[in-house]
């Protein structure tokens, strides 16, 4: 079946929509391959607007890895804004890819990367516009296999009904192996059709095919058990781990958009995984163990990435970049290379210590020192022990003063509200800390020209973390505490004027909580809210809490299972959690113990520097920590 481009029908619609360039393609690094020469064809989707989706590292890596294969083609698609959605429907133009503007429905696979659960409604829009039936079981051999990845895939149960498959963990090798299975199945004449392919995938042990699992419920609404309903399908599906990041130096040729996007930089991941053990952090829990990319590979990637893209900014990304074993040499080496080149380097600083400020100082040698971000996460020392974010008040003040005296006039402090065991007092400590930061900054610099911004995120308990059993803080209580905090910050007018205050109210967090820890019954809520018009739920101006509450009330079964049951209810040790059959490597007993330690305010060290504490990942997944130092240095280069 030769797929036809929809461009001639799309083009006349574009003058009628905002930012039409986002639907045009033509990015540097984009690859338009011969449709007929491809044995396997992927459409890759990031289910948010182009400006957010294009810079996504996961999609860019898979896109490049797949397109390096001569007989494989990968194109991209993103969520279209409601203005274009309406026009596409009116003119019967399907969801399309950006490279050749082909209908998404004509591809073999639709791979969707979920960094956040708030993209679920956008998945439904894309499927519907593509003419792909929403329930996966209604699809025929003519429809693409819809396969999810990304962090949210560690509990895909709320969208299980709409997915054919999900892959947990690192995608580089998994996407190639899935491609191989699809290639063989097609070459063999598609034996046993769609189900035959899904069975081949499920039997690998690392592709989750929801339809091959049956979920039973107890009379009280909890899950009784989740069991395979086909022979050869494993009871548990395990995550994938790419071990040697030096072997996978992607993106090599980053996508450089014509349209404006949220990140305009060459981003290189300097390590993957984190064992800091912050208990709220799903990313840190599900990406273990730590695997560093060597200083020389990072240096080469930066040089090649800048030459290929023309970007003038480099981001050194990871979950806690200052923890790289060679970060000092890496930063000074890169700063030496790019000192007189109008290339700016940045490290997303999140940890609170003076070493981070030193690194930032090195990276911004000749440039502007606009703002530094630190994430103490909790306002009181007690709550920081609960979440295992080991920062003392003295650490924070000393770090911030180092920043102010080092030439920064503005620091951003990131906290969470709604943490387990949190009281009003814990949150009000944020105001006291912010006041101290400004006072210390004024004293150290002798100037009133120091500012800080306090940024508050709502805590959402996530699967595969010690907080997976916690009751989420009700939205009203979060909002109440945010209000108290605002008053406390402004109680001192002189200090309050130097403090910016940003927060999100509690309602979107509660819906994120529903989608994060929901089970298959939440699928009906997602479908209903989508039918009622929900789109772009990660965007404040599009999100409607009332629409979600109404959909939950209408679509959930009557037996006591409601929005609160999924969110604010604390779970006990014996409850079967919706994601228990999905194996992130973390030992359930260790997770439970870490949850008990959290409640008792007992901290947990980092296994990079202290003995293994048996979280279970390395032996279970046959992996190990990979850290330097390698002892190598960056060689001088003559950049442009």
């Amino acid at each position, binding site marked *: 079946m030769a797929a036809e481009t929809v*461009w*001639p*029908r799309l*083009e*006349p619609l*574009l*003058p*009628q929509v905002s*930012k*039409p*360039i986002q*639907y*045009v*393609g*033509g*990015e*540097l690094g984009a690859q338009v391959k011969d449709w007929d020469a491809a044995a396997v064809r992927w459409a890759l989707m990031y289910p948010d607007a182009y400006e957010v989706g294009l810079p996504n590292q996961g999609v860019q890596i898979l896109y490049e890895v797949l397109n390096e294969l001569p007989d494989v083609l990968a194109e991209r698609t993103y969520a279209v804004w409601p203005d274009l959605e309406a026009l596409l429907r009116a003119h019967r133009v399907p969801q399309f890819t950006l490279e050749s503007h082909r209908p998404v429905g004509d591809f073999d696979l639709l791979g969707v990367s979920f960094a956040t659960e708030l993209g679920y409604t956008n998945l439904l829009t894309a499927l519907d516009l593509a003419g792909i039936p929403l329930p996966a079981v209604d699809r025929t051999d003519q429809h693409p296999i819809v396969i999810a990845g990304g962090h949210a895939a560690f509990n895909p149960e709320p969208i299980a009904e709409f997915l054919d498959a999900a892959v947990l963990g690192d995608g580089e090798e998994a996407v190639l192996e899935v491609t191989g299975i699809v290639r063989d199945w097609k070459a063999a004449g598609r034996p046993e059709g769609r189900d035959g392919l899904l069975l081949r995938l499920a039997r690998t042990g690392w592709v989750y095919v929801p339809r091959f699992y049956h979920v039973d419920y107890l009379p009280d609404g909890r899950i009784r058990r989740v069991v395979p309903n086909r022979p050869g399908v494993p009871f548990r599906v395990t995550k994938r781990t790419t071990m040697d990041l030096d072997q996978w130096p992607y993106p090599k040729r980053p996508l*450089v958009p*014509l*349209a*404006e996007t949220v990140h*305009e930089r060459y981003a290189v991941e300097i390590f993957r995984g984190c064992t800091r053990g912050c208990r709220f952090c799903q990313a840190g829990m599900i990406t273990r163990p730590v695997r560093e990319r060597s200083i020389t590979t990072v240096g080469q990637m930066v040089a090649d990435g*800048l*030459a*290929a*893209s*023309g*970007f*003038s900014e480099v981001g050194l990304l990871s979950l806690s970049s200052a923890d790289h074993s060679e970060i000092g040499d890496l930063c000074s080496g890169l700063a030496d290379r790019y000192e*007189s080149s*109008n290339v700016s380097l940045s490290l997303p600083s999140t940890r609170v210590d003076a070493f981070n400020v030193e690194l930032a100082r090195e990276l911004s040698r*000749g*440039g*502007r*020192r606009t703002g530094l971000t630190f994430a103490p996460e909790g306002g009181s020392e007690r709550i920081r022990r609960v979440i295992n974010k080991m920062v003392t008040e003295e650490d924070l003040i000393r770090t911030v003063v180092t920043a*102010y*005296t*080092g*030439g920064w*006039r503005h620091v951003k402090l990131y906290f969470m509200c709604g943490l387990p065991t949190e009281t009003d007092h814990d949150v009000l400590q944020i105001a006291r800390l912010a006041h101290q930061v400004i006072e210390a900054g004024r004293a*150290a*610099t*002798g*100037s009133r*020209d*120091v500012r800080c911004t306090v940024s508050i995120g709502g805590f959402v308990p996530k699967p595969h973390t010690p907080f997976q059993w916690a009751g989420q803080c009700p939205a009203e209580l979060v909002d109440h505490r945010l209000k108290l905090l605002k008053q406390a910050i402004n109680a001192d007018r002189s200090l309050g004027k130097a403090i910016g205050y940003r927060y999100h109210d509690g309602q979107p967090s509660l819906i994120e909580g529903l989608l994060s820890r929901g089970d298959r019954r939440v699928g009906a809520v997602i479908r209903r809210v989508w039918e009622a018009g929900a789109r772009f739920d990660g965007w404040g101006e599009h999100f409607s809490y009332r629409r979600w509450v109404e959909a939950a009330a209408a679509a959930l079964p009557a037996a006591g299972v409601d929005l609160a049951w999924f969110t604010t209810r604390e779970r006990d040790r014996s409850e079967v959690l919706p994601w228990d059959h999905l194996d992130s490597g973390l030992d359930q007993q260790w997770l439970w113990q870490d949850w008990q330690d959290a409640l008792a305010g007992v901290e947990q060290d980092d296994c990079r520097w202290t003995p293994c504490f048996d979280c279970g990942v390395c032996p279970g997944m046959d992996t190990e920590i990979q850290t330097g130092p390698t002892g190598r240095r960056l060689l001088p280069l003559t950049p*442009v």
Partner: protein
Amino acid sequence: MSRRQPPGGQAPVVQRVRVRYAKRGPLRFTSHRDVARALERALRRARVPVAYSQGFTPHPRISYASAAPTGVASEAEYLELGLQAPMPPAMLVGALDAALSPGLDVLDAVTAAPGSGSLADRMEASRWRIELPGVEPAELRRAVAAFTAIDQVLVERLTKQGRRTLDTRPAVYELRVAGPVEGGAGAARTAPSGVTDAPCAILECVVRQVTPSVRPDDVLSGLRVAAGLEPPVPARATRLAQGPLSAQGEIVDPLEADRGGMPAGE
């Protein structure tokens, strides 16, 4: 506290190069800002020795002559680059064109003649071609006649400052119905969209550079106001030329004055 001084030492401008480029096909949907970002990156990839401004956030020294609106194609966009090391204009054309996405095409470049004044000041008028799929040429001819017969055609335009009223008539120097689309360099690379076997009238106009500027959209609004012309699908406009307006009503190559009497292309 230590007030940090911005680093000095950006190299001075030793050569100014004036560049003509085109915005074609799907890339007509780029905005001016999109083009500017793409160009800055392409200059770095092409290793063009562009000069930077001083300060904490140095900017490449690029100035743009009036840019075509988003959605409008152009064969005649212009910009001027300040270089910190000399580069032959012909080499710059090749290197920059190779570094830009197809559809943003560099066509010509000359070294600015000393004391030749600003490039923007030379842009007295533009010639536009506007394709109107679904409009009969006779209907367009009637509308053009109605528009040209009157002295004032007020249209409304939505700007960032709100709604404003604009008289389109004085800026329109010439307005006529052209023959069918030729397959020249400026022709759109895809067929007029969406409408098959339907008429497609083509409007050509010469519009003076005035403030506030009168754009192809405004001319079409003027035709709606003056004659009730309502194209069934969005029009496709292309700027064919911009530059000084001669006494004979022709648009002159704006880089001519920099060529020092040499024929174009040398």
